């Protein structure tokens, strides 16, 4: 299942092993957070989650459907993947707070991926409601991970009210448009004192790597994997892309130059 290269020397292995993502004091070995929406079946979802190496995965809260069989909650529990409930479908701070409280009761976690969107068409975060909800949930003792716009000012405000991470979008949810404003993502990374998780918009592996190269601490994605033609293969690609992007960021890329710089010695 894994395709971990066997040629890594001890220095690289150690660099990966000791490079933990820390959110609110909790450590994660994987910097890929998965969503679960859009998978063709629970079985494919389970295989994709395992291939992705994710240690934390989002779920939504909805009314019980007595006719449904199997549950994503069981999939996560048996694979020891932490469930991160979201507040998807909420348009106001009040809705989001209510959903977060229910999720805390159902899933026995005070962590929440806070989503408060403005409209069905764009699913873009509503900054006013988002900040209000974040503040209220932090006050109630939640560990709040807000899905936010790629706006450095809003990201700063979310951090100031006590969010445990900020999760700027690369592009609208499910769009696969990649990272539309890498400059803003860099600005958010530069100023953030909490982890920055690129959330939404990723379409393929190079974009996940790019997010990490920009300095993000982690990537959250769902559709790119669950709606890929081969979700399990894409999950594996995403795992490697996030690892590669992280290593490249830490390695420090060469400066961009306008002219050639010979890599072989000059002829005598």
């Amino acid at each position: 299942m894994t395709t971990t290269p066997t040629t890594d020397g001890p220095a690289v292995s150690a660099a990966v092993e000791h490079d933990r993502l820390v959110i609110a004091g909790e450590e994660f070995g994987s910097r890929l957070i998965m969503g679960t929406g859009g998978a063709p079946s629970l079985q494919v979802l389970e295989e994709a989650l395992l291939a992705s190496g994710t240690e934390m995965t989002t779920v939504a809260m909805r009314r019980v459907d007595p006719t449904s069989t199997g549950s994503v909650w069981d999939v996560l529990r048996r694979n020891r993947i932490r469930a991160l409930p979201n507040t998807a479908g909420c348009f106001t701070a009040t809705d989001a707070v209510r959903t977060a409280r229910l999720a805390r009761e159902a899933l026995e976690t005070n962590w929440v991926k806070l989503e408060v969107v403005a409209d069905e068409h764009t699913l873009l975060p509503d900054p006013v409601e988002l900040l209000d909800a974040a503040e209220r949930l932090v006050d109630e003792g939640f560990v709040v991970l807000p899905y936010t716009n790629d706006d450095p000012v809003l990201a700063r405000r979310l951090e100031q009210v006590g969010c445990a991470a900020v999760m700027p979008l690369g592009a609208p949810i499910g769009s696969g448009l990649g990272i539309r404003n890498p400059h803003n993502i860099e600005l958010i990374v530069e100023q953030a004192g909490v982890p920055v998780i690129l959330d939404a918009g990723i379409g393929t592996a190079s974009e996940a790597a790019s997010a990490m190269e920009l300095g993000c601490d982690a990537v959250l994605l769902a559709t790119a994997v669950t709606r890929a033609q081969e979700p399990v293969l894409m999950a594996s690609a995403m795992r490697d892309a996030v690892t590669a992007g992280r290593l490249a960021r830490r390695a420090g890329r060469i400066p961009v130059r306008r002219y050639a710089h010979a890599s072989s010695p000059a002829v005598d």
Partner: protein
Amino acid sequence: MDVIVNGERRDLAPGTTVADLVRSLTDATGGVAVAVNDEVVPKAAWSGTPVSAEDRVDVLTAVQGG
């Protein structure tokens, strides 16, 4: 008595508890939460909480999303 369960009107026997109601909807033991009139009822209180006529009861669970 009439109770609104997950948005649908249902006729329930007087004395029905939240725990009875959850059991009638799902056999899942974990991953479920209940709100009565928008207030969360903690799991430990389900069996001791009767529902009343015209209550709005929402029974939620984790589903694929996000």
